[in-house]
């Protein structure tokens, strides 16, 4: 309990509660179950992708191609449904499968060729965006079959089906991170990559896995997105990667690697959502959202970097004769 109170997550939760109170004072509509469910539903897509991004950021990496990848998968499944029909199962298989393959391509360059992730994913982002423009000519896919639209309208006990997918993605990611060896390897690589290899981890396999896992989540998110929007807009994911990365970082994950949790990431997504929704309800121009979010990210990252530097300083100290030893 004490640990929970000291944790980053507790701090984020506190900020969300305070923000919610403020917004409710200005506009009581905020704190109604229909508004809250709406917020949640509209943020399932960044939330699901954030689950995959979390793993990448824990290893100290980043993936800026998720916007392009998500758009590409929506186009793939949209075209598939329009031209081939298919059913719910094949749509999910195709979506998650093609997402995982796109992610694996990123993973290959990062893991096997040891290229910095920012460079790799910038490259794939550009290729995917260009390829998509060539393929679709920028036009929307609108005649999504009725059975898929019906699927998107399903509610279980009043909860939109999309939210259940976010819950599923969160539970799966938590299980992977906490209870599988490869999940612990993600933390190990992020904490000390040399030690991870010395301990016997296969760093390249771990990296390949987690970029593919992110791709899988991207595919899932693309299906969920299409079920909400009922059409495919190849340009809908412009700067989507910023939202996802912001959510993960706001959720307490350390961009230098080694730290991050599913719970925190969910809170990060929520925080972004609350800020966005609250500003709209409070009639505050939305550019303030970008400014506030940017400032919070810089603050969070600065704190991480400073903490890391202090730790490094302590590790490189010399045991000077006559000085009190610094270890004990």
């Amino acid at each position, binding site marked *: 309990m004490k640990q929970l109170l000291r944790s980053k997550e507790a701090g984020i939760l506190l900020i969300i509660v305070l923000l919610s109170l403020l917004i409710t004072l200005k506009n009581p509509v905020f704190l109604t179950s229909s508004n809250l469910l709406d917020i949640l539903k509209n943020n399932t897509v960044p939330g699901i992708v954030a689950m995959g991004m979390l793993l990448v950021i824990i290893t100290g990496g980043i993936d800026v191609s998720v916007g392009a990848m998500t758009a590409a998968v929506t186009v793939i499944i949209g075209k598939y449904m329009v031209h081939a029909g298919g059913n719910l199962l094949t749509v999910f298989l195709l979506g998650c499968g093609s997402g995982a393959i796109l992610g694996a391509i990123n993973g290959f360059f990062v893991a096997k060729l040891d290229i910095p992730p920012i460079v790799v994913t910038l490259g794939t982002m550009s290729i995917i965006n260009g390829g998509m423009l060539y393929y679709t000519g920028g036009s929307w896919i609108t005649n999504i079959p009725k059975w898929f639209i019906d699927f998107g309208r399903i509610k279980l006990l009043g909860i939109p089906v999309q939210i259940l997918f976010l819950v599923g993605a969160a539970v799966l990611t938590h299980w992977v991170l*906490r*209870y*599988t*060896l*490869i*999940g*612990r390897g993600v*933390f*190990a690589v*992020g*904490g*000390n990559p*040399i*030690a*991870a*290899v*010395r*301990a*016997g*981890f296969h760093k390249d396999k771990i990296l390949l896995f987690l970029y593919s896992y992110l791709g899988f989540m991207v595919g899932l998110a693309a299906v969920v997105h299409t079920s909400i929007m009922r059409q495919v807009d190849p340009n809908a994911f412009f700067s989507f990667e910023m939202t996802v990365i912001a959510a993960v970082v706001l959720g307490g994950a350390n961009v230098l690697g*080694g*730290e991050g949790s599913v719970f925190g990431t969910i809170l990060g997504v929520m925080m972004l959502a609350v800020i966005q929704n609250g500003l709209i309800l409070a009639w505050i121009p939305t550019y303030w959202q970008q400014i506030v979010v940017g400032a919070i990210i810089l603050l969070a990252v600065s704190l991480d970097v400073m903490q890391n530097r202090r*730790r490094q300083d302590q590790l490189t*100290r*010399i*045991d*000077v*004769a*006559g*000085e009190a*030893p*610094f*270890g*004990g």
Partner: protein
Amino acid sequence: MAEERFLQMEDLSKTYPGVKALDKINMEIRAGEVHALVGENGAGKSTLIKILAGAEIPDPGGRILIDGEPVSFAHPLEALRRRIAVTYQDLSLFPNLSVVENITISRKIEEGARHIDWREMRSTAQDALAKLDLDIDLTTRLSDLSLANQQLVAIARALVHDARLLILDEPTSSLSAEEVNALFRVISTLKAQGMSILFISHKLDEVFAISDRITVLRDGQHVGTYLREELDEEKLISLMVGRKIRFMQYEKRSVGKPLLEVKHLHKKGNFADISFTLHQGEILGLTGLVGAGRTEVAQAIFGRIIPDSGQIYLRGKEMKITSTTQAVQAGIAYIPESRQTQGLFLGKTLADNLSVTRLDSLANQFGIIRIDLLKDYVGKWIQRLSIRPPYPKMLIDQFSGGNQQKAILAKWLAYEPTVLIVDEPTNGIDVGAKSEIHQLLRELADQGIGIIMISSELPEVLAVCDRILVMRRGRVAAEFPKDDATQEKIMNAAILGGDARQDVS
């Protein structure tokens, strides 16, 4: 003590580009012995450990045998499967994970587990800590533990692997005397259980306190393996030093007035009470073991580390240097050890590298570089330092280590410094190039520059330096005029603390 052979190394060699780190090592480790591995910096200890741990692959031709059966390790996991565990000097633990995981995770990998059973891991870790008689909360984040406890966590990890051979690389470098004693009790217990321990330490009193046998390495070669009773500290030091490399004989040179005076310089956690004087035209050697604080002192003079107290005087005037830019303006140049990463622009030509620090003086009033001036300038430095081959347009990457070092020297000499600090200037370059660099340093000193040369290579220090300062654990342990210095005396001071011998605590 069991006398049975356990692990043998036959003709083990390791060659890195340009350097033979290990040269046909033949040694054996017996079951249930504490075997110390000693040698100067660069003698090959780390390479040997890495090979045994599966982190480096030896040159073809050598063999490792366990119980008489040849083995080879392509990955650290394979060494762990043969029950060889290492606690590295940097500990190689995960600061962001709990004690439980740090102890058990590599065991899980070795078992090929896919899932994490936290309860089982907790009990495994608990057992290991109990064997070490250690009471640490298993859920603690590793980074919240003291270094001593982190060290013990690393050893606990080895226990979880049922290690037959535990390699301890400088395990005591950050421990207090009491913690060292506790560690030694642990080592004795493990040894009694039949575990072999390979103990690497610079602290000879510890080597004598704990080991059954001692192996000495020098220049990558196996000097010998001795029973502890056969040696004393003096004898051991004489085995460690005496490298065969010979440089041009030292010639006495005249030095001028005091140039740089350092008084009672102190920086917590780096060095304490450093005082010395550098004269015009003098080459002052700064030696000692790696981690003794030599580089830190140099960086303090260069403004990279701000000392807590003490004064630095340049030509009698006190300097308050708080940035490297100020140091450069005051006429101090510092050439760091890692030449490739800190001193050169790889992928650029020799001319680019030579001219980069003085581009301002090679440009016209509009800031455009004048090619004619650039050509003259580059030509002048190539000739002055006899850089070979003299091709300004060749990529700096393609030059030999010695000529790369010259290019860096030229870059800094262009500032016409009065004090030049060089950190391990001949590290990783061949003997001929070393002599050339030495000659260059002598010539620079003859022109009146005061030079501080940090070096671990004692023959080099003795061949080049007019005076030698030995550091040990952040303090000046001894100072020798060249005529007084021998390799043995320097090593004695570096390891034991010289005449005014300080207690190891």
